[in-house]
């Protein structure tokens, strides 16, 4: 017999929970849903654009009635549950239906708070919560009529903007002298008020409403100082109250909301609660992102899986008023032990404030330029030490989201190309968010392909998303799982592999309750890397968990052929090698021979079956794999240095070759590049390499965390050393620290920013013992890694099946 699950509330949190539950356990429950409203579940967030006439009700329906039928859910719309009888395990409704439950889900949301003053019951006084409210407002709206919105928070301002779009004269009345005081400081609030005034809204600040005037219909509003203004419509948007009466009457423990634990269970363990009606760890949430996280965890327990925990959310908000760019997250009040960083450009209408405590971002308010909102939000959520980038922080994540687009996404026209890799326009993204009900960056990526290739437009896509939905949806869980196959983060997994001494992928998946039989293209390569990095002596490389390039040691091309780049040690070659390359290119008809951007030679357009033979001939000339295909050590660029150059201070070429001999063959979380320059003119571009060495007269400067590519980042200076031996030791230690603590596919530049230069200096520079240990571990793992994969395949008999077709035989 199926378990009976009853859900009270047909809103965003309740139905999301059921959707998540159906994904996990489609047949476990007989589900009944009660909703007071006459509709299927809809996207409440988008009521604001409906009011403004930018969208229709049909646009915002999330689940049509057919969806309930298809999933065998009994839906009672227009039914309000009036009693929960916990003894009989039964709910009663206003229309006389009683339904028994084995488990109950309360998702009753909240109600608009109506200030108890005289006149608040008059026709023409409305809240702003549901479709009915919007209908009421639209019925009363009309050119030139007067609307008064009480409350200058997000909801009030979005209502006011909507009514103004409908042609009304709108006055916003606010009790304090600071709009959106929950989200904005005084400066940002003033900028916001000025620009809303420019658009035609009127404001009465620090004004207390004492009565609403009129006989049957509203005619005006009176304030404490006796002043009166005319009104045909009054919108109360002074706050919401969690809808907990039903739970209270059933004896379920409530404070401000229904109190739940980390598994979303109430005081009665058969009864779960999610959404705005809930109080979790003393927090109430009024945004959708945290409710969706609750829904996921709740579904996990309803499906009897029992491992997920909800640990609270960090939230951010945006105001959905077209043309106004505003972002707020965390605690923006400056307290005793915090300080603030401020950037102000009044003529451009830009204001940015970050509140910093203990070198961590605690809050952010951005006005006029919010492109870095999600970056700050990520730094805040991940509790990143920002001391290393404090001086640059306010200027934003350099070159973020564009190579010259400059403007914020909201200022761009609908036709602007946002994603240059996949040719996705702004309009394609906004349309998909609305029509396909997308909520997260991952949703947008998979539906539109925007931001799914090189990722440089991610910030723009996030901006469009958060503007359309009014909040940061991508980053809000406090922890981000490695991929959809697991609940665990990169760091959790690395820790478990080490502590539990796991050495195979199936062992990790088994121990950590993987949700899929053998993972996916995201987690398998990551696990394979973590295993061989942690247990170089024991773990066996799993080639089926490698991306094709690393599986067959060449770069796949768009037409399925391959390219190969032999290692050119420190950029030095000789006639013998060049002759061999020329002969091979002739013999195998290699269509393109190219100098790469990394001082090497690329042979492009090779058929897969020809690879082993070509590698064999390259080997004979002394040439080995350059790992141009791997998350591995790539090039070591050098300049001419003191051997020939009139400015050279040290022998950059020999240093580069030694470094390359040290580090070749190593697998790293992302690709790893080095360079050595012979003097501070820095001709080998060492300051945009993962590890860069610059010779000076008295020794060598070591620079770390540089990156060319998508987002240019200049290195930080790690330290200065005197001898070549020291350069090698520090380099080994640095690579090993990166190998052990970075997430898979996290390049050194973002890793340095996340983990902090201070920590890296501690481990690699200040503490000689940790440096030595790191370097020793690196050398140990190199013993197993430094085998030329081309030789193994050309003459060593490894993986021959990759290069041959299956035999066929007629039968």
């Amino acid at each position, binding site marked *: 017999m199926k378990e009976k699950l009853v859900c009270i509330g047909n809103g965003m949190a309740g139905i999301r929970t059921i959707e998540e539950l159906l994904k996990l356990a489609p047949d476990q429950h007989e589900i009944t849903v009660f909703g007071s409203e006459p509709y299927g579940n809809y996207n409440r967030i988008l009521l604001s654009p409906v009011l403004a006439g930018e969208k229709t009700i049909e646009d915002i329906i999330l689940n049509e009635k057919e969806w309930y039928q298809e999933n065998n859910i009994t839906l009672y719309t227009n039914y309000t549950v009036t009693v929960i009888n916990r003894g009989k395990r039964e709910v009663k409704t206003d229309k006389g239906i009683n339904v028994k439950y084995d488990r109950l889900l309360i998702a009753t949301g909240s109600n608009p708070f109506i200030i108890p003053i005289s006149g608040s019951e008059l026709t023409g006084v409305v809240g702003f919560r549901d479709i009915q409210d919007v209908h009421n407002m639209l019925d009363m709206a009309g050119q030139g009529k007067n609307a008064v919105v009480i409350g200058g928070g997000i909801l009030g301002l979005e209502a006011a903007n909507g009514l103004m779009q409908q042609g009304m004269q709108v006055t916003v009345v606010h009790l304090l002298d600071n709009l959106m005081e929950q989200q904005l400081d005084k400066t940002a609030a003033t900028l916001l008020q000025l620009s809303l005034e420019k658009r035609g809204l009127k404001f009465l600040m620090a004004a207390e409403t004492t009565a609403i005037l009129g006989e049957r219909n509203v005619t005006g509003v009176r304030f404490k100082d006796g002043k009166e203004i005319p009104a045909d419509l009054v919108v109360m948007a002074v706050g919401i109250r969690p809808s907990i009466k039903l739970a209270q009457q059933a004896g379920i423990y409530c404070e401000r909301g229904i109190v739940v634990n980390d598994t979303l269970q109430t005081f009665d363990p058969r009864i779960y609660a999610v959404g705005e009606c809930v109080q979790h760890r003393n927090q109430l949430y009024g945004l959708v992102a945290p409710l969706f996280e609750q829904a996921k965890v709740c579904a996990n327990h309803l499906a009897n899986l029992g491992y997920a925990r909800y640990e609270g959310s960090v939230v951010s908000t945006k105001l959905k008023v077209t043309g106004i760019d505003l972002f707020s997250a965390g605690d923006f009040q400056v307290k005793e032990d915090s300080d603030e960083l401020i950037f102000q450009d009044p003529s451009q209408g830009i204001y940015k404030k970050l509140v910093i405590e203990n070198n961590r971002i605690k809050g952010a308010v951005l006005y006029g330029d919010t492109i870095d909102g999600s970056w700050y939000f990520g730094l805040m959520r991940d509790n990143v030490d920002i001391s290393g980038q404090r001086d640059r922080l306010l200027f934003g994540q350099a070159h973020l989201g564009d190579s010259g687009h400059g403007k914020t996404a909201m200022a761009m026209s609908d036709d602007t190309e946002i994603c240059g890799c996949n040719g996705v326009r702004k309009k394609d993204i906004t349309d998909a968010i609305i029509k*396909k009900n997308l909520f997260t960056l991952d949703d947008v990526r*998979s*539906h539109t392909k925007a931001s*799914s*290739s090189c990722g440089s437009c991610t910030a723009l896509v996030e901006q469009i998303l958060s503007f359309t939905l009014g909040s940061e949806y991508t980053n809000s869980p406090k922890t981000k799982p490695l991929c959809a196959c697991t609940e665990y983060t990169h760091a959790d997994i690395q820790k478990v592999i080490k502590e539990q001494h796991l050495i195979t992928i199936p062992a990790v998946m088994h121990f950590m309750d993987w949700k*899929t*039989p*053998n*993972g*996916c*293209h995201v987690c*398998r*390569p990551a696990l394979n890397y973590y295993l061989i990095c942690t247990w170089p002596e024991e773990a066996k490389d799993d*080639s*089926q*968990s490698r*991306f*094709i390039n690393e*599986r*067959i040691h060449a770069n*796949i091309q*768009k*037409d*399925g052929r391959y390219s190969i780049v032999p290692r050119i040690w420190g950029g030095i070659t000789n006639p013998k090698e060049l002759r061999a390359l020329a002969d091979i290119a002739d013999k195998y008809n290699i269509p393109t021979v190219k100098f790469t951007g990394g001082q090497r030679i690329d042979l492009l357009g090779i058929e897969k079956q020809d690879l082993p033979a070509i590698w064999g001939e390259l080997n004979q000339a002394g040439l080995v794999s350059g790992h141009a295909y791997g998350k591995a050590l790539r090039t070591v660029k050098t300049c001419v240095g003191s051997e020939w150059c009139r400015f050279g201070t040290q022998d950059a070429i020999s240093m580069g070759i030694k470094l390359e001999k040290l580090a070749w063959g190593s697998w790293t979380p992302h690709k790893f590049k080095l360079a050595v320059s012979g003097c501070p003119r820095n001709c080998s571009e060492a300051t945009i390499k993962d590890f860069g060495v610059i010779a000076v007269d008295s020794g060598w400067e070591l620079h770390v965390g540089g990156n060319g590519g998508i987002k240019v980042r200049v290195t930080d200076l790690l330290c200065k050393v005197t001898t070549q031996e020291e350069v090698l030791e520090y380099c080994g230690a640095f690579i090993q620290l990166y190998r052990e603590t970075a997430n898979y596919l996290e390049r050194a530049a973002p890793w340095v920013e996340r983990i902090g230069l201070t920590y890296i200096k501690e481990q690699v520079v200040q503490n000689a013992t940790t440096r030595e240990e790191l370097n020793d571990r690196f050398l140990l793992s190199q013993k197993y890694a430094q085998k030329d994969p081309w030789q193994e395949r050309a003459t060593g008999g490894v993986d021959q*099946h990759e290069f041959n*077709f*299956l*035999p*066929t*035989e*007629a*039968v």
Partner: protein
Amino acid sequence: MSNNIRVGNISDIPSLGARVVKTEKGDIAIFRTEDNKVFALINKCPHKDGSLADGIVHGHKVTCPLHNWNINLEDGKVVAPDEGCAEHFVVNVDAEGNLFLQL
């Protein structure tokens, strides 16, 4: 009579891997999943002709190496939200593990 060809043995294909066989219908990728099932798809991704045999196999799916579309091995259908279908062939496995491809 359907056109059957013998295409080697299941042991020729690594678990969670694939091999290509040349046929008159073009290159066909033969996949072996972890549960030792064998599937065959035309070796052309419905997106931009990527070589599916070079993808990562997981469950009864393969991820195309070029742009990460996921393709269902059982019927060649592309996993939503992407759309498309790769031609799918029947492979029979006899008791000794010999593979017979129906064209």
